[in-house]
C-alpha cells in the first residue's frame, strides 16, 4: 500500500459524522431515535431501570450507535472522528438514559473520553442524577499488566456493554450494574493486528504507513502504534501471537470457559476474519481454554483500516447469563 489518500464515499468530510448518524437513525428508526444530533437513544426505553450510556469518538461504526437498544445501551453519545464527544453531548445522553435509578457510563479508556465524560458526570450530578462509570481497559498491548488500569479500551467494549446492559435491563441497582461492568471488564482481554492504515476524513493522508508485506501487532483502534512491527504472517501464526499474549496476561482462568470475539477493523474480509477466528480458537484450545460463545464480524472498526483483533472473556455463570440475555440493538441481537 502506498500513502495515497483513501477513497471514501462521503460528502464534505466535516459533515461525515452527522450524515452517517442521520443515515443510521433513518435506517433503524424501529430501534433508535435522536435525542439530539449527536445523541442516539433507544426507542421505547425501559422505565424503572438503571440507564446505560455508551459513546466515544466516531469512525468506529457500527460502534457506538449500533449497541443502543433493548437489553444493551439506552443512549450513545457520539463525538467527531476519533474524538470523544464533548460534555454537553454526554450530558444529554445521560439525561435521556436516566429514569431515576441512576446512570452508568461505559466507554473506552482514552484521555479525551475520561475528561469529557468526567465533566458530563459532574454536570449531571449538579442536576441530581447519580452517575457511575466504567472505563474499558481490555487492550493488553497498550500497557503492561502492572499498569492494567491504564490500558485502552477496544473491542472488549462490546462485552462490557452487553453484560452491563443486560444487568440494567433486569432491574439491578446502579451499584450492581457497575459491579457487573467491572467484572466483565476484568474478565476481558484483547489484542489486535493492523495490516493497513485508515485515514481521518479531512486529514488528507492515512494515519500511518505500513510497508508492503508488513503488519503491526498491538495497534490501537485509532491507529495508535502497537508493540511490534514485522512481516505479514499466516493467519494461524498471528492468531497464536494474539492469543498467547492474552493468555499470558491471565492469572486465574476460572473454569476455563471463554467467549471469543474476533473483530474486523474495517477492510479485512469476513473470509479472513473467520480464518483468524479458527486459528484463535485452536490456539485457545491448545492452551487449555474452552470456547463456549463466539462472535465474528465488525463490531468496533477503525474506519477502513485492514486488520482485526481478538477478544477473550473468562466466563462464569453470572457473566454468561448476562452475555446470553436478550438484546435487540442494531448490531447485537441475542
Amino acid at each position, binding site marked *: 500500500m502506498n500513502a495515497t489518500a483513501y477513497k471514501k464515499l462521503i460528502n464534505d*468530510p*466535516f459533515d461525515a459524522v452527522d450524515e452517517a448518524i442521520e443515515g443510521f437513525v433513518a435506517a433503524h428508526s424501529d430501534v433508535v431515535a435522536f435525542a439530539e444530533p449527536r445523541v442516539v437513544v433507544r426507542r421505547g426505553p425501559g422505565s424503572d431501570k438503571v440507564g446505560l450510556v455508551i459513546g466515544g*469518538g466516531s469512525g468506529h461504526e457500527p460502534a457506538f450507535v449500533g449497541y443502543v437498544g433493548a437489553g444493551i445501551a439506552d443512549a450513545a453519545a457520539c*463525538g*467527531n*472522528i*476519533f*474524538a*470523544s*464527544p*464533548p*460534555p*454537553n*453531548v454526554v450530558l444529554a445522553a445521560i439525561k435521556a438514559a436516566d429514569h431515576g435509578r441512576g446512570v452508568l457510563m461505559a466507554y473506552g479508556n*482514552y*484521555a*479525551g473520553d475520561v*475528561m*469529557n465524560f468526567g*465533566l458530563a458526570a459532574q454536570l449531571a450530578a449538579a442536576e441530581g442524577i447519580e452517575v457511575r462509570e466504567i472505563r474499558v481497559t481490555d487492550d493488553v498491548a*497498550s*500497557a503492561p499488566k502492572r499498569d492494567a488500569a*491504564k*490500558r*485502552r479500551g477496544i473491542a472488549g467494549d462490546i462485552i462490557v456493554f452487553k453484560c452491563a446492559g443486560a444487568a440494567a435491563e433486569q432491574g439491578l441497582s446502579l451499584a450492581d450494574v457497575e459491579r457487573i461492568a467491572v467484572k466483565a471488564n476484568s474478565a476481558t482481554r484483547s489484542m489486535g493486528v493492523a495490516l493497513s492504515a485508515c*485515514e*481521518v*476524513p*479531512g*486529514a*488528507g*493522508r*492515512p*494515519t*500511518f504507513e505500513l510497508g508492503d508485506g508488513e503488519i503491526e501487532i498491538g495497534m*490501537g483502534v*485509532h*491507529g*495508535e*502504534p502497537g508493540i511490534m512491527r514485522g512481516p505479514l504472517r499466516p493467519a494461524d501464526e498471528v492468531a497464536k501471537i494474539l492469543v498467547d499474549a492474552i493468555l499470558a496476561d491471565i492469572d486465574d482462568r476460572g473454569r476455563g470457559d471463554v467467549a471469543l470475539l474476533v473483530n474486523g477493523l474495517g477492510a479485512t474480509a469476513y473470509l479472513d476474519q473467520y480464518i483468524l477466528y479458527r486459528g484463535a480458537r485452536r490456539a485457545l484450545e491448545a492452551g487449555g481454554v474452552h470456547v463456549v460463545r463466539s462472535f465474528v464480524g465488525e463490531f468496533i472498526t477503525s474506519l477502513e483500516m485492514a486488520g482485526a483483533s481478538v477478544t477473550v472473556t473468562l466466563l462464569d455463570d453470572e457473566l454468561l447469563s448476562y452475555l446470553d440475555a436478550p438484546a435487540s440493538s442494531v448490531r447485537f441481537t441475542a
Partner: protein
Amino acid sequence: MTTQLLRARILAAADAVEASRDELCRLDAGAGDGDHGVTMALAARAVRQALAASPEGSGPELITKIAMAMGSVGGAIGPIYASGLLAIAGTLRAPPPEQPSNVAELLACAEAAENAISGIGHAKPGDKTVLDALHPVVLALREAQSSGLGIDHALGAAAAAAREGAESTSAMIASAGRASRLGERSRGLPDPGASSFALIMGALATLSS
C-alpha cells in the same frame, strides 16, 4: 485589549490553525491517532461561528463563548482549551480590570489556564502535552512583568517561549494522553497539542495593540 483587537487576534489564531491542518495531523499520526489537525480545524470553524453569533459582549463574555466553541469539538484537546479559557474568562471578570490590558493581567490569565488544564488533565510540564508550551509562556510573562516589558513585547516573548516549549517536546517521552502508552516510541516528533498551542500564541502575537 479592546474586544475588537481580541476578535482580530482570535481570527488570526483560527487562520493559523486551519493553515496547519495537514501538518498537525502528521504530527498526531506519529504517536497518536492522526486527527489533531482536523479537530483543531473543526475548533477554528466553531470559533468563527461563535464570533459571528456574538457581535457584542465584553472580553470575558467573548472568551466564555470561545471556550464553549473549543470544548464542542471534544477529544482530548476540547476540554483542555475549554477549561483553560474558562479560567481566563473568570480571571478577567473578577476583579474588574483597572486598565484596558496589561502584562500582569496576561500573566494571571496564563497562570489560571495552566492551573485549570493541569487540574482537568492531571498532567504536568514534561509529560509532552500542551502544558509544555503553556508553562514556558507563564515563565516568560513572569519575566516580562518583572523586567517591565510592554504588552506587545510580552506577548512576543510569550509566543517565542511557546514555540521553544513545543519544540522541546520532540525529545520527550509522553506521560499523558493517547501517546502515553508508547514509552520510548513517543519520542521524535513534537507533541501536536503543544505545537498547535504555539501556533495560536504566535498568531495572537502578530497583531500589536
